[in-house]
């Protein structure tokens, strides 16, 4: 067990409290990293990210691409011998990174999530076409995936108009 230096335990403590997960239970067996389908797109593989948190290395953890590339598929934690909810930890880290205004490791992914929630706030349901248009607009990218978009439109995988829920008051309550 590593003793944390004074002043370095903030992140470890915060994440432990927020997620309810005992971070010192990680054995660094690397099962999570071996199981992760997307670890190669991450700057720190999942077990190294846990190590960063254990060491209280807040900046490295919160600015990492890892916390955004993780899609929460739960493959890591269903194999983890200590049943650590790694995607749950990622959720805490992402929210903290946004709250504290850290440099975001993957701004595109944050934009995507924001656009999804924007349409859900407006309509109550996700509207894929608008999500894609807004996302591409922010990125100023109209070339990549244009063909895929057309195919999806043709096959009615993208609806032109959003599907809306009736109870608008409920949405106000949720997105207050």
């Amino acid at each position, binding site marked *: 067990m590593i003793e944390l230096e004074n002043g370095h335990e903030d992140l470890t403590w915060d994440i432990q409290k927020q997620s309810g997960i005992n971070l010192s239970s990680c054995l660094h067996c690397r099962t999570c990293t071996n199981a992760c389908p997307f670890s190669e797109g991450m700057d720190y593989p999942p077990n190294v990210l846990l190590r960063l948190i254990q060491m209280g290395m807040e900046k490295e953890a919160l600015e990492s691409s890892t916390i*955004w590339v993780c899609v929460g598929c739960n493959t890591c934690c269903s194999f983890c011998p200590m049943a650590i909810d790694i995607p749950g930890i990622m959720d805490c880290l992402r929210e903290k990174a946004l709250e504290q205004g850290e440099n975001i490791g993957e701004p595109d*992914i944050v934009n995507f999530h*924001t656009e999804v929630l924007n349409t859900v706030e407006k309509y109550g349901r996700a509207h894929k076409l608008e999500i894609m248009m807004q996302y591409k607009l922010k990125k100023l990218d109209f070339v990549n995936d244009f063909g895929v978009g057309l195919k999806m439109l043709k096959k009615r995988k993208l609806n032109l108009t959003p599907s809306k829920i009736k109870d608008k008051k409920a949405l106000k309550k949720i997105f207050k």
Partner: protein
Amino acid sequence: MGKTIYSFFPGCSLKLSNHENTLSLLQFCDMVDIELNELNDWNCCGSSSAHSINHDIAMQLPFRNLSLVPQGLPLLIACPSCLIRLKQSYLKLKNDPDLQKKYEQNWGRPFDPSLEIIHFFELFKRIRLRDHINDPRAKLKGIKVAPYYGCMLSMPPDLRKEPSYYGLMEDALSRLGAEMISFGYETMCCGTYLSVAKPKLSEKVVTQIFSRAMDAGAECLVTACAMCHLNLEIRCALKNPIPTFHFSELLSMALGAKDQRKWFPKHIVDPIPLLKKRDLLKTRSKNNN
């Protein structure tokens, strides 16, 4: 015989961008005497995005859906991701009396501690396909199918006690005569939104999934997730990928559904040539491109 009624949460991916999945799912349920009542005015479960950036919204979105379920009806969900979102929120409520009070104030309905939330797969423990079908083994005869589950069999630790459905598609489809191909990538996640934000990354994984399945001799993939289906269809970099079926399509076909011509033209990779080759198309489709 009367039908068994379930409350049904479709979710955005299934209902709004996967019509062929929705249609074949409803067909299948109807044919096995199950009536799905769509949850009135349901909203998005929050998908991958809400829990990624705002945990309050991520809790409230499923809470409202839970409050809409009619008393006494089990809630059936066919999207694996919606299921996790709703079930996790439900368990959180169940274990937290304070949160229950807030929920009741907010949504004006008492919390229902007996609410049953099940995945579509659970139906296979409650029905017997052979009761609804004659000569089941002839129905999908000869077709070589690689089952693809993606992340749906992986559960976060708080849902570890949920039933495991490992092998369910293999079991159901082989009973209908399909030859199931094991290829090692059955549970490799499709990447969900990385398909938009990191297309190269998801392309690599999806292409691997197809290459392995094709090397193993599969003629098609089958998936039970609408989101996976889309990613598999749009992110495979191979020139001539095999088609991907929805689990519900193969099931309904085997049970003799007649409206296949409404489903298959909505696929990006056309499955009709394969079905013809295996002589599995009962009526000639008008829309065979």
